[in-house]
């Protein structure tokens, strides 16, 4: 098993931490993982992205050019990464902020209205874990038991009081993700 994922959006959307939760979940299930962020100009306001690789074997290159899954959270990232999804791969996007929907017909496309839904629930900060829940519904690369462990591990202790809300958001994300084609 080897899953190469890119998560891309604006800085502040929780892109890097979503990747960290996923990567830590993989660690908890004893997989090999790498987490490679974009850093620098992007993180100083603008787009941010992270490549996470989860594998049951030693990971050679942490840098990828094509992805099994792309989680896209803004239009710039859609323009940049839509073409980098492997044929037969998965593209997940939040409709909020996407003006031009993806046009590929050789990949599976899903939408998740996490921005709207998390705001409606008054829990805008749970946006990223909601999307993570949607992703794990489509690609259960890590078992939920380990995801919950990874979530705890990747959060600082002062944030542990939010664990139940994050867990609820993960479960909710799994329910609201929709297949486009």
């Amino acid at each position: 098993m080897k899953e190469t994922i890119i998560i891309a959006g604006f800085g502040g959307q929780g892109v890097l931490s979503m990747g960290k939760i996923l990567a830590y979940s993989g660690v908890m299930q004893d997989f090999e993982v790498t987490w490679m962020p974009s850093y620098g100009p992007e993180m100083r306001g603008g787009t941010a992205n992270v490549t996470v690789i989860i594998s049951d074997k030693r990971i050679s290159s942490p840098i990828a050019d094509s992805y099994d899954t792309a989680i896209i959270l803004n239009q710039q990232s859609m323009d940049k990464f839509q073409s980098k999804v492997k044929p037969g791969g998965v593209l997940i996007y939040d409709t909020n902020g996407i003006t031009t929907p993806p046009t590929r017909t050789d990949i599976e496309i899903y939408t998740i209205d996490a921005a709207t839904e998390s705001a409606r629930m008054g829990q805008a900060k749970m946006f990223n874990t909601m999307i993570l829940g949607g992703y794990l519904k489509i690609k259960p690369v890590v078992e939920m038991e380990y995801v919950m462990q990874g979530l705890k591990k990747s959060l600082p202790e002062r944030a542990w009081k939010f664990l139940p809300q994050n867990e609820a958001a993960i479960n909710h994300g799994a329910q609201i993700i929709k297949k486009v084609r």
Partner: protein
Amino acid sequence: MAEKEVRLMKGNEVIAHAAVHCGCDGYFGYPITPQSEVMETLMELKPWETTGMVVLQAESEVSSINMVYGGAATGKKVMTSSSSPGVSLMSEGLSYLAAGQLPCLVVNCQRGGPGLGTIQPSQGDYFQACKGGGHGDYHLIVLAPASVQEMYDFVGLGFDLAFKYRTPAMLLADGAIGQMMEKVVFSEQKPRRTDEQVVEECGSWASCGKGKRKHKNVATSLFLQPDELEALNQKLQATYREIEAHEVRYEEYMCDDADYILVAFGSSARISLAAVDMAREQGIKLGLLRPITLYPFPYAPLKAMAERGVKGFISVELNAGQMVEDVRLAVEGKAPVKHFGAMGGMIFNPESVLEALKSNLIK
């Protein structure tokens, strides 16, 4: 501390943890992307409250390296970290440290150059690290980590080698290895040496108190008498020959039956590893030699490969072709040696490495 706990951390973060765990006495640094997490993590860890390790943000890289000189002169285990432009500022100090025969650890988390360049990863400082940087006839022991675990492990190893040979050691990483997160397992906390232990270990040379000794130990790099400087240089060169004889480290991957060999270190070795797997799937017998020590460089195994009939070598580097010169020296013209790389903080993918092999060597 749970010894075998597997953690997920950035390369830069584990440098800080490793420094504390190996009993480092002092860190002196100045922030620069992409290595700022080293000092940030140390400030979070507050080792001055636990092991007593000093962590100090200096006013510049020039100050950092000279604080390292001062600490090292007393036999303490001291280090600094920076990225390419900052290491250029430290080059004078490194030459002084080498001349003073002072052990220390310097981490260079390389970014694109020359000049201020970019903050993206690069391996453009190979020449600077391995061929001098500062003035005069000296070498640093240069270790090239290719994973987050090696970032952790090589801090302790770097200190051990630096003290064994009384020479500065450098950990030559890059922005990619520094910024990425991978699994890491920590070693046990080693206590910092007591003052008595420092005197016992380093009392023959360090300025750690005269005690009952008749003479003063003085750390200096100034020898105005030519014969004295000649003697120092002879001593340094003898040390370098010892290092070259005993400390060469490298890793081979699929080299035994290989027709072609990639030579790569650090993050480009990780990319090259994937290229080897892809080549093997296509029936191309490709292998990877990854130097772990860049100085001393693994000339002998490369020469042996050329002599057993390897058809060609490609030095894969995030630069315009620096290590390739050492690969050519090793191969001694017995096989073609090419370079493949990218500059300016660009990173190539395994496919393009394989393409370079096909277009350059496989006829």
